């Protein structure tokens, strides 16, 4: 009897189970999710694999970062976040913006470079008509070595990749196209940040671009950022900064890239001199070809460091021949002035 009732209850349970399982939604597992097309396909061994298409470095595509919506977002970040931070942490003194008054259309800004703070600082202080319609040439091997970094800098700084060691056709074509479209470009002709605070030789890239496009080149001297965040350190030391804009250099018909690059370097050197002394003294030295070199004295490393200007604050007594560094006096090529004064 009990056997019969067991059998009956088993049958009922089975039926109930069947009914329930019919009514319940069936769990559908993906069909072999590890296989193609769920997973990427294999590459057949008999088909030669093409070299991977590079999408980083100088091949990083930045067109998206210049679309209107992205520009709007960047402008909000720049004016709402970066500018207040810059003015709060490294308050800048800006000189020479009046030299841009007569300039219309695109320009190529070329500045000395000693810190990661240079770009946010310049984007904060350049006139509005330029800073919201400007791209920044950033080292392809540093800012665009991964797609994430590329996206971050393309968005935040409107950076475009440039190769440090050569003037690539891709960069020149893109830059020329952007200048033609009304964009301005910020470029660092030294090719990278100064390793010790002194300037480096200017490459001819900015000059070549200016000669090719006939767009004026605006020299800029930046001071103080190396103190706030020098190369090789991650510690930010708040302090004053200074930005000086020079008169635009427009290449003449007979100018070549090298000559324009030399004029640019001389202009930045004169701006540095002007910043440390005054306009008249700097002009006289520039006219005599005696502006102090940006690259500092060719002496031992510690003496170069010793001779660095200590502050971006202009001293009221600055004369250009006054104070020396803590070490032995250094002289420029002419030997008369001592421009690397510490204050």
């Amino acid at each position, binding site marked *: 009897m009990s056997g019969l009732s067991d059998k009956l209850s088993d049958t009922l349970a089975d039926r109930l189970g069947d009914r329930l399982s019919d009514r319940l939604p069936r769990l559908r597992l993906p069909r072999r999710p590890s296989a*193609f*097309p*769920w997973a*990427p*396909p*294999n*590459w*057949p*061994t*008999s*088909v030669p694999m093409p070299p991977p298409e590079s999408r980083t470095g100088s091949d990083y595509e930045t067109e998206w970062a210049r679309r209107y919506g992205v520009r709007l977002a960047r402008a909000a970040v720049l004016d709402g976040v970066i500018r207040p931070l810059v003015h709060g942490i490294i308050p800048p003194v800006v000189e020479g913006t009046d030299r841009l008054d007569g300039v219309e259309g695109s320009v190529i800004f070329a500045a000395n470079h000693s810190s990661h703070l240079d770009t946010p600082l310049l984007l904060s202080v350049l006139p509005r008509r330029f800073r919201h319609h400007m791209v920044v040439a950033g080292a392809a091997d540093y800012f665009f070595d991964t797609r994430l970094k590329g996206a971050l800098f393309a968005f935040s700084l409107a950076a475009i990749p440039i190769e440090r060691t050569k003037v690539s056709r891709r960069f020149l074509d893109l830059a020329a196209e952007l200048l033609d479209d009304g964009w301005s470009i910020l470029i660092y002709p030294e090719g990278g940040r100064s390793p010790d605070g002194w300037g480096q030789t200017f490459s001819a890239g900015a000059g070549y671009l200016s000669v090719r496009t006939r767009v004026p080149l605006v020299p800029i001297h930046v001071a103080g950022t190396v103190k706030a965040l020098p190369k090789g350190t991650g510690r930010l030391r708040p302090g004053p900064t200074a930005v000086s804009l020079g008169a635009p250099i427009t290449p003449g018909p007979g100018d070549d890239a090298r000559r324009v690059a030399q004029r640019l370097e001389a202009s930045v050197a004169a701006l540095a001199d002007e910043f440390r002394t005054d306009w008249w003294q700097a002009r006289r030295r520039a006219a005599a070809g005696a502006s102090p070199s940006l690259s500092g004295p060719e002496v031992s490393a510690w003496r170069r460091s010793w001779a660095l200007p200590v502050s971006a604050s202009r001293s009221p007594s600055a004369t250009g021949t006054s104070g020396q560094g803590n070490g032995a006096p250094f002289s420029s090529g002419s030997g008369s002035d001592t421009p690397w004064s510490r204050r």
Partner: protein
Amino acid sequence: MSPRPGFVLDVDRSTPPTLMWHGEGFRLERLPTGSRIVYPSEPFEPIEDADFAIRQALENPMGDSAPLSALLRAGMKLTIAFDDVSLPLPPMRAPDVRQRVIEAVLDQAAAAGVDDVVLIAALALHRRMTEPELRHALGDRIYDAFAPHGLLQQHDAEDPENLIHLGLTDQGEDVEINKRAATSDLLVYVNINLVAMDGGHKSVATGLASYKSLRHHHNVHTMQHSRSFMDQRHSELHSSNWRMGRLIAASGVKVFQIETTVNNDPFPEQFSFLAKREWEWNLRDRAAFLAVSASVNRTPERIKRNIFNSMRSPMGLTSVQAGEVEAVHAATTEQVLREQLVPVEGQADVLTMGLPYICPYNVNSVMNPILVMCLGLGYFFNMYRNKPLVREGGVVIMSHPTPWAFDPVFHPSYIDFFDQVLSDTTDPKEIETRYEESFATDPWYIHLYRTGHAYHGVHPFYMWYWGSHALAHLGRVIIVGGDSSAVHRLGFKSASTLSDALEMARDVVGPHPSITHLHNPPMLMAEVT
């Protein structure tokens, strides 16, 4: 970057599954190691300024023809004939090449003061085009200017009043074509060349001909002696049309031929995975494939068909040439082969192919079983030069749902052919002898052809003849995933999976068959050595 040419892939364990059309759907099939897959070339770049290229072609004709502008004069009788709805496949995005070309021709005709202009759709025995189809092919400007005045006509191969017999070729073939076209001072023919068979003298000699004329080359003998009909050098179909075309020219019909080629880029961006090599599918391609496959599997047949039929191809113009027929066609064929020809070494025991939802004869309708046979054994099998991709006595395996379904408006005679003829015999020669005439002369089919949108009564016979070379050549035909009753009616074997089909093929060709798969889309033509 120039497009990569087609090539043959040897399948090994690393080869990903291969995409196959399966009607309005797809299959991913893993072919046995050692099989070969023939991949087509990438599409050629289209001409940037198509309208400029067309104007250039009209003013710089080939052969001994004068420029079009010099052939046009006031008071003349001008007829412009154009390819019908069977080309291109799928229908291209507006503006259609025919619209561009015909507008350029009409511009010149208007400038020359030509009043008597008639446009004719060169249907042969195809169905009449619907108004939307005509508007799509010609554009609204042309349609609205000509159709309301009865100046946009569709060729009627059964209208004795509007046919003219021009004589017999040296092989005794009747040449009877559209009277308006034949008696015009100038006949401009506007063509689209999708495959090497299209165009040349076939445009007028077939497109504007009557049944009396067509039966001389649309028959089993011609098809079985065209190896293949895609290869002009060995095509009896081509030879017959050339004989007729030369007789048409000798009869004083002045033809100004305008031929165009379009690139091998048949499907829009959402379906770009179709024409890509599987190992190059990126995440987007795989997602698109999975999404499309999942949607297709859950969509009712009719809706699915409508969606596919509404697809418009992004194909672009790659060349346009105008002038004397033979000189023009030589340049056109060269252009088509440059894009489609793929060298293949040796024949295989088994040829596999996936068949899509569309062929030249089911635009905007269902692909019935007869058209499945025609597409696989007529078109795809014949896409070769020198010798077929599959050896004599070999097996063709086609993948298509092959529904027992017919469009009663477009294909009425197909229904009776399938019911009455194929249930009796599938032998093309016997079918031709015993049944063709009764269908070809049936007054009801003729009435539907002339007044409705029906293919001519004899058309299903031609479709069957189209595959007659393959039927004579092959040892077995297997359809994977087809309606088994419909497949059996065709005289073929039915298999549920490709593995089953290959197993069945081994009964015919031996236990270790060599297998070649014809990858489609886009289209290719194999140069088999």
